[in-house]
């Protein structure tokens, strides 16, 4: 019998698991759910401190499949960011972990996506991006590339919405892209996102095995594996002693300090990428796009932004925990108010 490993807060990984998935066997989303479980466990986050948020779609069903000890809200289509905003306003101590899809984010929810970034909401926002609507049986979504073709139907002729490019343009404080099949990269990026304060977006290409996993689809397993343009090799080093040892790379690398004291190490592959420069991030996205490739890694990082709740100057105590005495002004104050209106 093997001894179960414990994380930094002495919990087994099983404490981070959820219910059984009802998605199609082989779905990229299930791989992402496993990474979420792994990352939250390795980072030693209290499960009860996490709030799982989602919209509607295959991806948005997944919060039922991970972190069963966390409260969650499977909201309405495309409106997860606003519900997260409200919850964040009254309880800024919650760690918001949100899952959305490309239909949920790039079409019906594009407005809320943009405005959540603009406010720098303190949350991790994972887009499980497969280029098709799964629950309604395989229509194209707005992130599908021009020239890509799903299993059935005509080739897509419209230009895609690149959610990472959009996020960089909006000044999002943490923008990354990954692939559901790249477990190590995705885990490191997600752990870094969890250590970040502010809006962290990870656009994860997550093939739809049922409707768009044919080789003509730019988001199929085979296509992504062959056309993955890795910006850098990412290693996450927690601020506490890690469960697994992290090796120091032989070549060049740069390190990024995260809000909670952890580090993300970016090992140079080819030429160095400076994630603090939005122009470099956009160049990387557009150059890869021109060649029909997917660029993955930490595209952009800006740690010097106030979060939505910091901007408002709220009390240290989360608003939902304030005693009534701080929420209802005194009886005397109302007398003064009435007197003021009377002109006395």
């Amino acid at each position, binding site marked *: 019998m093997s001894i179960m490993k414990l994380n930094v807060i002495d919990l087994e990984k099983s404490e981070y698991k959820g219910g059984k998935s009802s998605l199609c066997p082989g779905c990229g989303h299930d791989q992402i759910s496993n990474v979420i479980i792994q990352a939250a466990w390795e980072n030693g986050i209290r499960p009860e401190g996490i709030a799982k948020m989602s919209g509607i779609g295959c991806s948005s069903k997944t919060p039922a499949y991970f972190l069963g000890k966390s409260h*969650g*809200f499977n909201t309405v289509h495309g409106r997860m960011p606003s*519900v997260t*905003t409200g919850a964040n306003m009254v*309880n800024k101590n919650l760690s918001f972990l949100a899952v959305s899809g490309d239909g949920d984010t790039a079409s019906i929810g594009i407005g809320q996506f943009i405005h959540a970034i603009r406010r720098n909401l303190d949350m991790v926002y994972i887009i499980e991006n497969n280029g098709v609507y799964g629950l309604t049986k395989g229509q194209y979504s707005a992130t599908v590339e021009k020239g890509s073709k799903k299993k059935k139907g005509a080739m897509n002729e419209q230009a895609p919405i690149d959610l990472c490019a959009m996020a960089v343009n909006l000044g999002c404080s943490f923008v990354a892209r990954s692939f559901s099949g790249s477990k190590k990269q995705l885990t490191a990026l997600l752990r870094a996102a969890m250590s970040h304060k502010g809006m962290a977006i990870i656009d994860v290409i997550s093939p739809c095995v049922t409707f768009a996993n044919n080789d003509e689809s730019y988001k199929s397993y085979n296509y992504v594996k062959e056309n993955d343009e890795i910006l850098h090799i990412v290693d996450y080093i927690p601020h506490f002693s890690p469960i697994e040892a992290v090796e120091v790379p032989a070549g060049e690398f740069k390190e990024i300090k995260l809000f909670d004291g952890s580090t993300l190490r970016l090992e140079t592959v080819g030429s160095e990428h400076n994630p603090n420069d939005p122009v470099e991030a956009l160049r990387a996205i557009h150059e890869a796009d021109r060649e029909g490739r997917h660029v993955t890694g930490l595209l952009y990082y800006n740690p010097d932004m106030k979060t939505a709740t910091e901007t408002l100057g709220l*009390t240290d105590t989360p*608003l939902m925990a*304030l005693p009534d005495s701080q929420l209802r002004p005194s009886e005397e104050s109302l007398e003064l108010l009435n007197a003021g209106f009377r002109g006395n």
Partner: protein
Amino acid sequence: MSPRINDFTINIATANGTGSQSANLVILHSMYEMGVPVSGKNLFPSNISGLPTWFIIRASDAGYQAPGDFTHIQVMMNKDTWQKDLDKLDPGTVIIYNQDAKLPVERDDCIVLGMPMTKMARSISPKMAKLMANMYYVGALAHILNIEHEAIEKAISQQFGGKEKAIEWNMQAISEGREYAKENWDYETEYLVEKREKDPNTFLIEGNEATALGAIYGGINMLSWYPITPSSSVAESIIAWIPKLREGDDGGTTCAVVQAEDELAAAGMVLGAGWAGGRGMTCTSGPGISLMSEFIGLFYFAEVPGVIWDVNRVGPSTGLPTRTQQGDLSMLYEASHGDTQHIVLIPGTVNECFEFGWRAFDYADRFQTMVFGFGDLDLGMNRWSTEGFEYPDKPMDRGKVIRSKEQMDAISNYGRYRDVDGDGIAYRTLPGSGLDPILYRGTGHDEDGIYSEDPKVYHATMERLRRKIDGARDILPAPIIREEKEKSIGIIFYGSMENTIVEIDDMLEENGLSISTCRVRALPYHSEVQSFIERHEKIIVLEINRDGQLFGILRKELPVHLLSKIHSVAYSDGLPPRAKVYSDMIIDTLDEVEL
């Protein structure tokens, strides 16, 4: 002929953006200072500058607050509506006009009094002449009506508090206007204001500001809003008053305010706040409710508390965005797809705006659902008299929230949606507590909050929700009933119709009718509403809309044997209700019933 004292209506025709609102409020407040029962209605366009605006001031010792069915004094400042304004006047009306408009006033049957207002204003300040010209009609009215100088001074200092130059110039303009009228007009006045004992406790305030204050005393800690007339001033008042009335012990803000990207997001934020244990609210108008409807269904089905305050404007579609109506009631009551039913609080006075403003949060937390406040532009954006707001008579009710393991252990067979107490209201835990978490969802769920499409489970959930909201009936504000001995005719009405009902009642009594009234203050309606109907021979349901929306709700929910008693009188043209329009319709309807 002896003059009419404290019983007349003044109509002031101006263009918006010309500063006339200040002048109009000075007249209103100075009369109010003298203790004259007075009300003011602003009929404004959906525009920032240059379109016609009318301000109607009614003085009435009888306490009538409707705009009145006749104009006694017409002030003419707007060239664009000049002829139309003239044409609709009855013979004998006093016309005060700006001669600098250089337009003819061909009404020999009226009393026509001109003054070169713009020219005179130019002598005080050439730059400000257009704005200042309005103060000359204040002076003219002060002369004709005999408004006291001290009352004017007080109203001016209230209006321009702290701006010494503005106070000086405006007082000068009013004095010059008064003087000019005295010197140049050969007119023996037919209308006078007479000082009345003013209750020193009373003041005028807009319903929206009262709502905002109520919300603050109700413990609002998350306000999300998207600007829309006529509700924006609810949000703006909360923003203005919060820092003056509340501060956290560490000096931080105790209410997060988010200007949302649209009404959908505003509703979503309220939902998120309520889910996380906060007191969230948004304010909007009909178009906003339409957009929020999907979320409203989720509030209902996932059972999350929240408050949405609807200040009704005229629909459908963009409608008449700066006019008033009670056209949203049936939409609010059953907003969203599927079977839903929502609590709707319906204030009829500014005091109730305040009271329902704080109670809304208690009801939302208690019944774990979305609660509507339902006012309209007339109540929300016009100024009404009050003797002051009353402090909440009980501590905040946070409802059935389990906050500790001990509380959880005390409940046998806990499930997020299990009706342990038999009142349809289940217990809930909050995110972050670690206590029996669930994934909230808009999909079917069983008593433990687990996804379910089981027909029995769905049916049982919907029946419990019906029971839950039905259980609110007699806990929500009871109707205000004024009952006659005869019990022949009863009028059921709601909201801002309160300000016209006394006058309607008097008109009907002049016609020999004996009228009881019942003002509904919440939906689902109180059992006393039904017993009021049972006690009376005939019931009129009086509303400011086309279709008789409360009538429809009553017809759906009342027992069949009462249905033949109730009759709808509904009328809406965008203007605040005028008594004669409705009393005539009531008489006609009663005549038809007799046949």
